[in-house]
């Protein structure tokens, strides 16, 4: 299987994981390890930079996996840019998962503020990974603004509803010059496999693993599903047809 290249880094694993919502931090770190993920996202607002004994920071450091800070909580581009700068300092990384969802009910991303923040952050040499609606035009605009990837949603964050935006994800994948990471809504390993089969470059999963009765096994299941989906995509899936294809009644006269 091919490796995934984002900015100056290459990834063997195409599964990114979120670290929120776990009932137990040790369970979280075990799940993260089982997922094989090489990039895990954490909300800047959850990290306590002052307290020396911050439990979350300690557990995350133990996993030895690179952290991708996210700007969850920001409502505007200005807030997100400031948060990204703070995160760069705190976690010593210029990678940022840009999340601007001013609607606290469904946490739907604000396209206008996200575009503005991407423009600003790209100029500040950040590797920007913006969470967005599955909007193909916005993806092209973000590309022009210097984004590293696009992260369209499959369904609202935490909904576990799967790939409700499938048709638009397919357009985005077809048109994109940057990696497409399907983020949010992936509720089951089969959803992740499906995203990979249609050609997504990676997926990001959190809720489905975190609130499972056995996060460790669920993380492993997602790992395998992502590998299977990617392998199938690279091998090339056969076309889907509802009836058997027999002879060519319309064109056969040419060869008679």
């Amino acid at each position: 299987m091919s490796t995934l290249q984002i900015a100056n880094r290459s990834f063997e694993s195409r599964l990114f994981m979120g670290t929120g919502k776990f009932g137990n931090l040790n369970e979280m770190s075990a799940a993260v390890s089982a997922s094989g993920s090489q990039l895990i996202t954490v909300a800047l607002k959850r990290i306590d930079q002052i307290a020396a004994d911050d439990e979350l920071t300690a557990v995350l450091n133990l996993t030895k996996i690179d952290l991708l800070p996210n700007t969850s909580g920001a409502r505007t581009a200005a807030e997100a840019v400031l948060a990204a700068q703070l995160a760069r300092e705190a976690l010593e990384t210029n990678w940022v998962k840009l999340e601007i969802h001013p609607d606290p009910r469904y946490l739907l991303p604000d396209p206008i503020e996200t575009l503005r923040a991407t423009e600003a952050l790209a100029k500040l040499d950040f590797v920007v990974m913006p969470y967005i609606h599955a909007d193909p035009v916005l993806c092209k605009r973000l590309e022009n603004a210097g984004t590293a990837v696009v992260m369209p949603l499959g369904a609202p964050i935490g909904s576990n509803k799967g790939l409700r935006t499938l048709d638009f994800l397919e357009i985005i994948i077809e048109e994109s010059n940057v990696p497409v990471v399907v983020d949010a809504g992936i509720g089951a390993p089969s959803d992740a496999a499906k995203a990979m089969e249609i050609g997504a470059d990676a997926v990001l999963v959190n809720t489905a693993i975190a609130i499972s009765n056995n996060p460790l096994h669920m993380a492993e299941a997602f790992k395998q599903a992502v590998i299977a989906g990617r392998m199938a995509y690279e091998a090339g899936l056969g076309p889907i047809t509802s009836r058997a294809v027999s002879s060519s009644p319309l064109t056969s006269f040419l060869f008679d």
Partner: protein
Amino acid sequence: MTDFKEILDQYSWEEIQTKIYGTSDQDVRRALNKEHLTLSDFIALISPAATPYLEQMAVKTQQVTQRRFGKTIQLYAPLYLSNECQNICTYCGFSMDNKIRRKTLNNTELLLEAMALKSMGVNHVLLVSGEANKTVEVNYFLQAIALLKPHFSQISIEVQPLDQAEYQLLQAAGVYAVLVYQETYHREVYKKYHPKGKKSNFDYRLDTPDRIGQAGIHKIGLGVLLGLEDWRVDSFFTAAHIAYLQKNYWQTRYSISFPRLRPAAGSVAPNFHLSDKHLLQLICAYRLWNENLEISISTRENESFRDHIIPIGVTTMSAASKTNPGGYVVDPQALEQFEVSDERDMETIKNQIRKMGYSPVMKDWESTYSGLIR
């Protein structure tokens, strides 16, 4: 834009009451099987007809809450600034006619209290005061916030209703949430419990969440004082108020609290009793109606109830609270607002949360997100 007063005036208390108590078994089952619930479904779920379905409601509440909020409980503690008050509220320990020594923290005392909270690991703090508009007013709050901001990642306030311009100042100073409880949506009953002081103005209080929303504050906390009137009807109006606010201030988070009347110096006994069973029913009804609502439980509730409710809908809890100004270190004997029921310390409560399979969260905010000019 229609304001909430106009909406409230369109309803009659009795009509809603009749609707609630006339709910059929079928109404309840229909509400339980829906994915997007309306206010009518909320009525069904708080009705006596829904009580037999409590276990089913609790199971669904747990699933929905875990999906949206994860297996986490956010912890905060109140910091009482002052118990001076010019209102007469017949149920409250701070009521003006309660002839007890009054105290307002000065800067040094405030920082001592803050350090006590910090040493307990508190990072989200709720500032509380009575209503003394001459001394404990917006400038006092601004000064307090400036002192506390370097030490806490999230500062919320529960003080007297203020004007929109004052809320804007607080927003710019870094206030995250404002909590203001209507106490009761029954206009006449409200008058009876709040006979004197600025608080006796029902409409000004009713309009307060709008002023908070317009000022761009991140979160608004609502609630009624459970025990003043029929909790079912009051809760319907609370939900209707939230529904109205969500449509108008769509960038704002909402939280709901369930203050049950607790014994306080000089207070009256509750007129309407809300049992544990019904409080749980109410919590589940809110969650099933509104998946995104933050649900907060204070130390007014006892240990056993708080422990059992951790996995059923709650998102936020106060812990190790003192409800008197200076209560942590400066002046532990000062007049308290109400008697705390769950007196366990922070570590004990954190361990209890872990024992229930949940993760206690002390920090879920970045002060960067508060106070930028919008």
